[in-house]
């Protein structure tokens, strides 16, 4: 097969051109009436026929060029890759693992310099420091902070689902508990963010145990349903307990976080004033960026450490086989509860951060869709894999944010086209594509927590998803 490809690439090219033309012709025939013409009513209520040759041309070109590229480049490339994989599988695997090994470090370094990278680039682009600062707001806040919140939430949920194998569909409830803990305690008692951050985590962990107790005996679908109900109950309590939570109006004017007592306010005593910097809201955003980055890294660090502890191994063993766990003297009750509580705690941290960042919380932010998105990130990333989950969060959340930026789509589809509206459609499409392409998520392989000779990744075909 390789011979055919290498000996006559020209015939391959000719074949591609032919197939591209056929595809274009087919697309023309198919779309001529569907896309090329459009019936409309004019102002006098008459039926008029609009001709859309431009759009039709785009369809036909996409079909023709797409087919040509597929035949000429993608298919031979795939075949060549499969061939080389077969022949030099070992060598390639080694190279891949070397890249994989350094990937988290590169990613981490990038994350730490990201705000300055953005400011620097924009400052150069705009030609002024101030322009760089203001321009970076969007990238630091909408992309950086937003993605990192989801990364942290997904890493927290990963402990419950990815490690312990307990399908929790109500994770957003703990996020809500953390957010409201901070919002209520700070507005009623004026407690500072740094005191309330751990408290919010502890409250959420307590709620995790409260949820854990009744669902200990449940498995699989039943567990999922009860946790889903739990999430909804928390939200409904927040809506209806108006005396405390102000219901759907939400709690506004929540105190901002401070950098160890230095507030990020304009004027004397503020952060910018103290350091002699020009006034800008971007400092607070950058501060929040580093705060959530550190919180997320704390989650990752704890997860990595816990996996090497007996409790982490017990979680994974629980995911694999609960009965065998009990036969080895592992108390599955406390093991499950610690998984729920640990996962919930990180949800609570993220919640209190969310409240401090927004300055406003309402039950609207804690709907089931949020739980579903977090779960989708965990599943797409590959259950149990921190790097995979981070990538999935960046793709899913960053992707949907990016859709807001795709102004050029308006030029194609007309001015009344709003790309954000297609968010969920694309979200679903991406999930299907990833699940078909990689059924165990981006990173399906499991890294063992201990090794005798050599750390070998455990292929996803052996790991189980857990059943309860």
């Amino acid at each position, binding site marked *: 097969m390789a011979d055919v490809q290498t000996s006559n690439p020209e015939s391959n090219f000719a074949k591609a051109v032919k197939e591209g033309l056929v595809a274009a012709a087919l697309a023309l025939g198919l779309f001529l009436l569907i896309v090329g013409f459009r019936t409309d009513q004019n102002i006098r209520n008459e039926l008029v026929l609009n001709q859309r040759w431009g759009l039709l041309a785009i369809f036909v070109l996409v079909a023709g060029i797409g087919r040509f590229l597929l035949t000429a480049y993608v298919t031979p490339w795939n075949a060549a890759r499969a061939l080389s994989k077969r022949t030099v599988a070992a060598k390639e695997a080694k190279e891949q693992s070397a890249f994989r090994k350094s990937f988290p470090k590169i990613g981490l370094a990038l994350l730490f310099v990201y705000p300055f990278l953005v400011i620097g680039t924009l400052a150069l682009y705009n030609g002024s420091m101030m322009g760089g600062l203001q321009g970076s707001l969007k990238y630091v806040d909408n992309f950086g902070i937003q993605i990192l919140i989801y990364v942290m939430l997904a890493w927290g949920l990963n402990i419950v689902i990815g490690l312990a194998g307990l399908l929790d569909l109500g994770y957003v409830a703990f996020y809500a508990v953390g957010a409201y803990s901070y919002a209520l305690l700070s507005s009623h008692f004026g407690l500072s963010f740094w005191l309330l951050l751990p408290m919010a985590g502890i409250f959420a962990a307590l709620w995790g145990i409260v949820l854990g107790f009744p669902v200990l005996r449940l498995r699989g679908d039943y567990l999922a349903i009860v946790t889903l109900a739990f999430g909804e109950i928390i939200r409904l309590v927040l809506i209806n307990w108006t005396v405390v939570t102000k219901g759907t109006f939400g709690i506004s004017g929540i105190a901002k976080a401070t950098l160890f007592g230095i507030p990020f306010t304009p004027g004397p005593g503020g952060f910018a004033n103290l350091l002699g910097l020009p006034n800008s809201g971007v400092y607070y955003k950058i501060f929040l960026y580093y705060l959530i980055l550190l919180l997320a890294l704390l989650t990752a660090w704890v997860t990595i450490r816990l996996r090497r502890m*007996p409790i982490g191994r017990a979680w994974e*063993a629980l995911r694999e086989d609960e009965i*065998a766990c*009990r036969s080895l*003297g592992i108390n599955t009750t406390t093991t499950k509860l610690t998984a729920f509580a640990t996962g919930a705690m990180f949800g609570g941290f993220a919640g209190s951060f969310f409240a401090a960042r927004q300055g406003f919380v309402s039950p609207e932010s804690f709907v089931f869709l949020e739980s579903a998105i977090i779960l989708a990130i965990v599943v797409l990333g590959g259950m149990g894999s921190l790097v995979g989950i981070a990538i999935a969060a960046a793709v899913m959340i960053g992707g949907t944010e990016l859709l807001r930026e795709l102004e050029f789509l308006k030029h194609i589809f007309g001015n009344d086209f709003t790309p954000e509206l297609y968010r969920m459609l694309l979200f679903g499409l991406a999930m299907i594509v990833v699940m078909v392409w990689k059924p165990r998520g981006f990173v399906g392989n499991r890294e063992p927590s201990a090794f005798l000779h050599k750390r070998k990744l455990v292929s996803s075909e*052996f*790991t189980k998803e857990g059943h309860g």
Partner: protein
Amino acid sequence: MVSEVQKNNNAILRVERLSMKFGGLIAINDLNFEAKRGAITALIGPNGAGKTTVFNCITGFYKPTEGMLTMTRQNGEEYLLERMADFVITKKAKVARTFQNIRLFSGLTVLENLLVAQHNPLMLSSGYTILGLLGFPTYKKAAADAIEKARFWLEKINLVDRADDPAGDLPYGAQRRLEIARAMCTEPELLCLDEPAAGLNARESAELNKLLLDIRDETGTSILLIEHDMSVVMEISDHVVVLEYGTKISDGTPDSVKNDPKVIAAYLGVEDEEIVEMLEQAEAAGVDDLTAAVDLMSSEAIHELEETHPDAAAVSLVTTGPARPAKPAAAKKQSVAKLARTTASTATGTSEAKPAAKKTPVKAAPAKAEPAKPVATRPAAPKKAAPAAAAPAAAKKPAPKAPAKAAASASQIKAGATANALAAPRGGKADRLIDIKGIGPVNERKLNEHGIFHFDQIASWKKADVIAAEAYLAFDGRIAREDWIGQAKAMAKASQKKPAPKKSGGAE
């Protein structure tokens, strides 16, 4: 009780009066045995004898209905296993187990499997995770020790090279060995193995024998073992307990058990060639009815026994076979199935047990004068077991459609029922007794419970019956006052005029 303990202090596990019932099914019935310290005790028996249930009771996966399970540890501590949760039994009483269908953590590596087994000591040394999380050196040392211990066992089971491979990737025999090693990593004093040799080839099975003997001799761990592979049982076990239908039928050294006629009967019934022969004969004779086949077979077996042993004892025992009551067809089918299964189990029986069995079965039974289990009654035994209650009930009924169900309901007829009580409604359909004025749904249910389903039953009530019925319906004089009997007579007549809708199962 204390004196008893001192009496048998070399018993590591005492099972006393153990019973386990699942609803109506009695899986274990009043079982008593002991496992000696430092010995290998084998628990054998035909399929469905309740061996795994005994294991599940010992390891806390089932709570026994009755009985006491006393585990005596080396340091003299005693644990009553029936009162402990499953994981506490492993943790405190030091009883570890393996499973009939391997339960490894297939997604964890071989090494990790062994580390999970050391969960409890590691948990302690990591200060319940908190100290370990903060990086205290005690945990690091404990973790290194745990890996060393895992390596020790990996060397024992010959899997050091594959330590970093996922457990699910191992071949079957290695998985079995790994499961044993994993159980041993919990440092048990009693190791319970549920069919460790199942699915192993001869070489692997020999390796397993060596491993188990090694475990017993080097670590002093006592082993309790369920096994079908007789080469394993007879070769390594010091003591064998044989179960059948949840009761112990034999207990002793492998040799004495091997020659116990009861054991042979339980495992083999009659000699397998005989059964095959009989089945063939039945076929040849063109007996298409299963019942007839069973009759033929059992009478053949008896005949043969009579021929070989014309002493009276055996014959009198055996005659219970043909003198069967009229049984429902279902029971007969069951007995045939049972017979076939016996054949199958005999065929899979091991080479060691077989020759002994061939010589002994017919001879041994009358010689030992064991009236309870003569060899030839073996095929007939299930027939006797056919629900005794069903027989009288079925005799009364004109057209029993579901005999098993009838048997159940017959036993449900409450005390104080009237003379003409039925086990089940005729034709499976009761009359609408509530049509009689004065009988409501509650009373109808009560009447049904007492075997009254039809108008003509009420119509034929005598005075004594009325008194009996009033006793359980808890009202007096009403039956006469409201003239139930008269009403019932009218209703019965009316329903007879119709072309018998009840018998054809038609509705009102």
